[in-house]
């Protein structure tokens, strides 16, 4: 274990590189979660649709993602898709992470939608709304609110998972830490430093998510 003074000096001297990397990590996380929400919503709707085949498609997607390590998914998507068309690194990494997050988010949305009282849909339909309109205007807004806490949780997981983007050449936090660590023959110090950055980001995210939850709680 590094001495505290060494740790602290290194923390200070490396801050600029880490600040930059932090921005990459945040961008990766935000973009992959946003796309993950879109993907997740799509597959959640497939799953609750009354068409069985669509439900199966959704099941297979969720099973593949939950059944294999993320690092495998990242490799396969990044290099597999590369042979078809070349996305810029950032987008390739973001989409791979989004594909992963999407499966978990799909489960979150599915649960949230199914937890909304059936009477809400019926009330909408009885007022002349189409199923789509009732879903869009009545069910989803309420489901979103209910999904927020687990979504916030997934956000944090997504943040940490973005560390695996290091393997596909993104200069995010973890990548910078291992590079500096191996360049300086001092892995432990840099890993402890990067842990501090993650802890701060997670704390920040937690506060933000709580804030949004509170704001959306007006109707309770």
């Amino acid at each position, binding site marked *: 274990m590094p001495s505290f003074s060494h740790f602290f000096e290194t923390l200070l001297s490396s801050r600029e590189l880490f600040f930059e990397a932090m921005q990459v990590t945040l961008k990766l996380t935000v973009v992959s979660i946003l796309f993950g929400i879109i993907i997740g919503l799509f597959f959640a709707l497939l799953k609750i649709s009354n068409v069985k085949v669509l439900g199966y498609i959704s099941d297979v997607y969720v099973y593949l993602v939950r059944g294999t390590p993320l690092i495998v998914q990242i490799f396969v998507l990044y290099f597999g898709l590369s042979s078809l068309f070349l996305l810029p690194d950032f987008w390739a990494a973001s989409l791979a992470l989004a594909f992963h997050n999407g499966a978990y988010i799909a489960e979150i949305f599915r649960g949230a939608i199914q937890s909304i*009282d059936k*009477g*809400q849909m*019926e*009330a*909408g*339909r*009885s*007022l*002349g*709304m*189409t199923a789509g*309109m009732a879903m869009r*205007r*009545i069910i989803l*807004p*309420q489901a979103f*609110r209910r999904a927020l806490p687990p979504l916030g949780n997934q956000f944090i997981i997504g943040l940490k998972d973005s560390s695996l983007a290091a393997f596909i050449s993104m200069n995010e936090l973890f990548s910078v830490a291992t590079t500096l660590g191996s360049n300086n023959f001092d892995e432990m110090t840099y890993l402890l430093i990067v842990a501090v950055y993650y802890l701060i980001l997670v704390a920040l995210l937690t506060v933000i998510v709580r804030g949004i939850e509170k704001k959306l709680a*007006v*109707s*309770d």
Partner: protein
Amino acid sequence: MMEKREMIRVDKLNKSFGDLHVLKDIDMTVQESDVVCLIGASGSGKSTLLRCLNFLEVKDSGSIIIEDEETDLKTHDVNKVRQKVGMVFQHFNLFSHKTVLENVIEAPMYVKKVPKAEAIENGKQLLNKVGLSDKADVYPSKLSGGQKQRVAIARALAMKPDIMLFDEPTSALDPELVGEVLATMKELAKEGMTMIVVTHEMGFAREVADWVVYMHDGRIVEVGHPTDLFESPTEERTKEFLKTTQLK
């Protein structure tokens, strides 16, 4: 009653859930301004009948003619027909993420494409009518059960339906809150609204209903004026039901 317009005609309506035959050859005609009370034991099919009339359940066979229009999910735009039929549920089903006023203007604005200002104006009038003008900007969670049900009535009325269906509108309410909802419904009846009401409120049925329908095991067993049906039912099963059930 004969010169009035026919609002609903149900002919040989049948509905099953799997093996369970819930509605058996239901025939019923409801004319303009009629107030019909539907009574019967739990499971007799009252809710299912109401839900078929509003297409929340899909009938198996038979016909439902609403305002002289045959309705069939396959050939008709059921959402159009539905707009003529308002429904009030036992558990209110207010949109919990919207304020009282937003609940009321939602369907006019997004289904009927009424301009916002007009929808709001009409919505406020309706809230006034049900005695809740001061609650326009409040969320449903802040309302009592009776207030919620009155908002639900205003919300249904906002679509200017010709027929209103009520499925046990007061049975989820604390006893002291039943009165306010019944009062609102009475007023509606007085204004000439065509209404079908599933209820156990004997007082309401006596005072307001033009006729009462007793259902048993998926069939309409007896139909009659409230005083007749309550005091001298002709059918054996009706007698039994009235004896064992505590109509209030």
